């Protein structure tokens, strides 16, 4: 996969917390964004990467990309979608 660069406005690192706080921490960070802004969420392999993208999707935000950082972490790029 070509390492395309995604521009983002904010970032949050959730590798220092465990499920279910991972999603909570990501959600709090997304809540602070303006509609349409993009955030890079860095998370651990394993449970976080298997569960957090889906939870964010269920919240109605737009997932742009999941990038493998090749250090046991992943970065999920999310565009905030304000509730209609």
């Amino acid at each position, binding site marked *: *996969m070509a390492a395309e660069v995604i521009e983002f406005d904010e970032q949050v690192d959730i590798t220092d917390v465990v499920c279910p706080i991972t999603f909570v921490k990501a959600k709090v960070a997304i809540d602070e964004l303006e509609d349409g802004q993009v955030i890079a969420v860095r998370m651990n392999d394993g449970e976080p990467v*298997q569960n957090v993208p*889906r939870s964010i*999707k269920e919240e109605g935000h737009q997932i742009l*990309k*999941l990038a493998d950082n090749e250090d046991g972490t992943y970065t999920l790029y999310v565009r905030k979608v304000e509730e209609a």
Partner: protein
Amino acid sequence: MAGEINYAELKKGGFMKQKQKGFGSLRLKVIGGNLTAENIRVISEVAEKYGRGYVHMTSRQGVEIPFINVEQLAEVKEALLKGGVETGVCGPRVRTVTACQGSEICPSGCIDTYTLAKELDERYFGRELPHKFKFGVTGCMNNCLKAEENDVGIKGGMEITYNEEPCFSCGVCVKVCRTGALSMEDGKVVLDASKCNHCGRCVKSCPADAWVGTPGYIVSFGGTFGNFIYQGEELLPIIGDKETLFRVTDAAIEYFEENAKPSERFRKTLERLGIDGLKEKVRKAYEGGEE
């Protein structure tokens, strides 16, 4: 047996003989683990008035009221019935159908477990068989309700299809798949169907809805988790509709009825006869059933 208490008869009504003479623990009927507020209210009143003010939760989502005086049993049953609570069953018959919260409540759910539990209950509850027979319904691969420990376990899953067009190669599905069935090739996702366990995680997590999932039932047969422990076996592919599912469950119960010795659990029958007979019977039911 004048003057004596017929415990076998009593047991049908879910009255479990207690160590303390003259008392029993009354098992209540609970379907799919749900009780209404009204049910709970009347259970609480009965436990206070006739029992010792507490209930016991069983491992299979049942509720029992201990310390019911056998002489008051009829009165107790009547009081419970006013709050819509029936008594459960024990002995050689179809038991409480257990269920997790399923797709109506749980975001991970693939099937509506509670509706299915009620339907199974209507179809089979209390049916007399050579030995006890348990159904359990769990909404997805997370298996909160431990499908395979039941004589017949039903687990929700999904048959999946991939649409290239909406897929924007984000990579999420490849990562969430726990069986390694998915890989990314030239920006498109490739499925190795032989590795797919129908968990539906790709469907649930794809941000573009490029994966489409059709809910289905994964059935396991001959599980038991008591004195003897055995994990129920899957003998069929995932089942896409309820008619087929019920044909299959009918076939399994029939097989048990026809082949088990009295007081023999389903697993023991299968061990004695081998799995092939059952396999053939449920396979026929799965393929259309018309005999």
